[in-house]
């Protein structure tokens, strides 16, 4: 294991029972939300996890956070497998892996003051000796996220803040315990465009100055392209491509990635391109296709793709991985 890998995920699975029989409570069918994800998160990097709705990215974050018990797989953090740890040991880990949620209007308790919200993790872990010390640390966290003067914010309530400010508070709560890993679930998608860049730049600067690794989940490839060092594309519970951002964008290997890149609208009228529209919509995670899970919609599917589930293999440049049987034969450069 290379020393710069902070979080190592191997073949993680999270399946939910689909339906319960009336009497016996037994399941029929499984929702395979996360279905064999393998990913490395490196030190102080910002890794963007891109995928559409239903691909399992949010479930993945919840599982990593310990809020959901994985069905199978390993997650190695600080040289121990945190899957299936006891609650007490997991609590110690939790100080170092924190999460930022999507909805700024929902992620703060409306009956608490900002100061209490930010100081809560300290109280839970018994870290600061008294209320004043907690307040001081909360102030520091607020300043770190750009809410100044921090003292003025301590006694405000969430509804008095704007969306962008609330999201900053959410980041402050995540920071106050001094984590090593930050899991961000679409932190800007509910904010106005002019405000988003502020939060994104904040996350970026945090990881540079404090060496925090950020796993940034989003459905917006453009955002990911701007701030991520590496980008991972997720489809139906599996990572189908991962690599350094410039390379994945310049030379995507997986047909899904290629299609995704081609349909993202670009704010430049002179660059209208022909989107490669995929037929249909992503299937339900209950009905994962046999073989390559993408083959029903793939424009270049082979016969073999119907039977064989492609593993994530190295393709091209450094650390560029893709799960496609056609990866051996190059698909040609992206125009």
């Amino acid at each position: 294991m290379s020393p710069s890998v902070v979080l190592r995920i191997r073949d993680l699975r999270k399946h939910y029972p689909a339906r319960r029989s009336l009497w016996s409570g037994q399941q029929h069918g499984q929702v395979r939300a996360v279905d064999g994800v393998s990913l490395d998160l490196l030190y102080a990097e910002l890794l963007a996890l891109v995928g559409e709705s239903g691909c399992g990215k949010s479930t993945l974050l919840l599982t990593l956070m310990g809020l959901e018990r994985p069905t199978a797989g390993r997650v190695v953090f600080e040289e121990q497998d945190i899957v299936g740890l006891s609650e007490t040991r997991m609590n110690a880990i939790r100080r170092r892996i924190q999460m930022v949620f999507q909805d700024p209007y929902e992620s703060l308790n409306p009956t608490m003051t900002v100061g209490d919200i930010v100081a809560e993790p300290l109280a839970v872990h018994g870290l600061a000796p008294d209320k004043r010390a907690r307040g001081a640390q909360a102030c520091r966290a607020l300043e770190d996220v750009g809410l100044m003067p921090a003292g003025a914010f301590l006694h405000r309530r969430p509804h008095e803040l704007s969306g962008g400010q609330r999201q900053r508070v959410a980041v402050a709560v995540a920071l106050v315990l001094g984590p090593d890993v930050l899991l961000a679930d679409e932190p800007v998608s509910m904010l106005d465009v002019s405000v988003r860049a502020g939060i994104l730049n904040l996350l970026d600067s945090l990881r540079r100055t404090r060496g925090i690794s950020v796993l940034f989940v989003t459905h917006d490839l453009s955002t990911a392209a701007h701030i991520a060092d590496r980008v991972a594309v997720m489809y139906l519970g599996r990572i189908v491509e991962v690599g350094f951002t410039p390379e994945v964008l310049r030379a995507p290997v997986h047909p899904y990635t290629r299609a995704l890149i081609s349909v993202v609208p670009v704010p430049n009228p002179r660059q209208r391109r022909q989107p490669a529209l995929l037929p249909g919509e992503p299937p339900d995670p209950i009905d994962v296709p046999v073989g390559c899970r993408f083959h029903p919609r793939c424009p270049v599917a082979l016969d073999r793709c119907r039977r064989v589930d492609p593993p994530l293999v190295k393709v091209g440049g450094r650390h560029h991985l893709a799960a496609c049987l056609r990866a051996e034969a190059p698909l040609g450069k992206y125009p």
Partner: protein
Amino acid sequence: MPRLNDVTDTFLWGGATDRDADPIRRALRHNRMALFGAALLTSAVAAAALAQWIAPYDPGATLQVTVEDVYAPPSAAHWLGTDDAGRDVLTNLIYGARVSLTVGFFASFISVFIGGAIGTVAGFFGGRAERVLMRFTDVVLVIPDLPLAIVLVALTRPGLINVIVVIGIVGWTGTARLVRSQTLSVKQRKFVLRARAVGASNLRILVRHIFPLVLPLIAVNTVLVMSLAILNESTLSFLGLSDPSRTSWGQMLNSAFTRGAMSAGAWWALVPPGAGIVWVVLGCSLLGYGLERVLNPRVASHHLSSAHPTSPKSAKTKRGHPHQTSPGTEFSEAPVVLDVRGASVDFTASGCPPLHAVEDVSFRLHCGEMLGVVGESGCGKTTLMLSLLRLLPTGGRIVSGEVRLSGRNLVAMGEKEMADLRWKEMAVVFQSAMSALNPIRTVGDQIAEAILRHEPRAKKIDGRVRELLDMVGIGPGRQHQYPHQYSGGMRQRAMIAMALACRPTVLFADEPTTALDVMVQAQILDVLDRLRRDLGLAVLLVTHDLGVVAEICDSVLVMYGGVVAEYADVDALFNRPRHPYTRELLRAFPDLSRPKAELVAIPGSPPSPNALPPGCRFAPRCPDASSRCHAEQPTLHILDGRHQVRCHLVESNSGVGSAHEPFRRT
């Protein structure tokens, strides 16, 4: 993003939009119903407490009773007459309050305690505990309350404690269900998730996060449970099942009923006790109902609220704010389909100054052209769109300016004429197809409805519906299905098909793809683009996504704070933006083709319509703002072609262009 209603609600009913903050106090301050109910209750409690001092007679005193004293009508000695034993009705009435209130209070306490405990455990712990508890609750819920209470009281010794306990254990099911669903909903909110993610214990989560948000609902529920408890107590007393030594109102009515008050014509023995019950129960219900309205506020006006009077006939220039109609050269040879000049939209509510949601918007839409209306929350783009169709909630309308659809002035049109125009000339595609379609009618049915409204004698509707669905790529069998059986993208396509049912001239699309994935979005945009070319439709596309605008729009209207910041052809806007907001917005917008470019945030947030800055709307956030910008609203300047900008700096011609490098695109 806050919905349109949230904006108007905040303005019209003031204060914080977050309804969870301090609801009880807010309720009692603003809510007359709750206050009145509280007044009724407190007066009853006061009367009961002070009974010894305000009752004219002593209730326990043995009286020398003669025949005249029985059922004596109201007189100076007895304001409410006497009952069958010659006792003063008024005295009994006042003392009777004690029993009713005591039973009501304690019984409801028991009910709420049991229900609250069960609901909390079921909602918080879930799993088998929840299943078992809820099944039990459902079973007990079905068993009718009063018969069960009668049986229980009848089989035990009649007495006050018994009655309290029985009513208490019969009435907890409503509370249990309420508490469970609220606990469940709070438990799923993100801040609880975070607390768990931080490692907070269950106890901490319950106490600090769940209870504060469940307690207000429990408080309201307690009041309502109390009203039911008092009613139940009075009924049980009336049936003779209560402690006969305690005079309660029900007991008085029992005496009246069984001892011939009715045949004696003694209405004074009949009416006051019941009136007492009504007094107290009404107090509880008013209080409960009033409080509930605060906790679950419903939008005050709905879509069918009484139509506002038609707007003033002609264009009025706004408060010293000269606008220039654009004479400009035509964009293309195509005829102008929608001509908007100086349109302003206000929201008015009695007692409040009008809210200026949109001010002085002008643009021209030609046949076959797609105009993108871009902006962030609160900029008024959706308001503008809805105002053109006159679909705003009560109080919102165009107050000045002209809107001409193929020459006809829409602003001055009567409501009936307007209704005939809707869908036939101007159709809408809303953002969320799931909520914009009636869930209990088939899709085909709803499309047919649109056709039949404007062509009542149309034939072969079925075929036309099929054709429309086919045009957007939906198979023929689907018209008999319900919206929930469609996938998200399909639903949106169905909405587009429905919008085209009457071959409108203009199609308004309000963020049609915002809620969809990028792949599905591409499909929808493709359909839209294709159709407008094939059918020569003019489209007004409201969106916040600059990428979408660049992809398919011909012209762009950038809105900020209710005014037009910039209006231009798409090429001119993206490559030669003249307004600082446009420029900054482009810099803040991620571009997949230039991932290395820095994303620059604009400090602050977009203004809300009830807190607009005095000068230029963008001045507080503008990097180039001068003192003039802060004080004075800029006028609209026409640049070449139909490029319009509302900015002081353009005028001097030295501003935007030279101070910053024009935003060049490869």
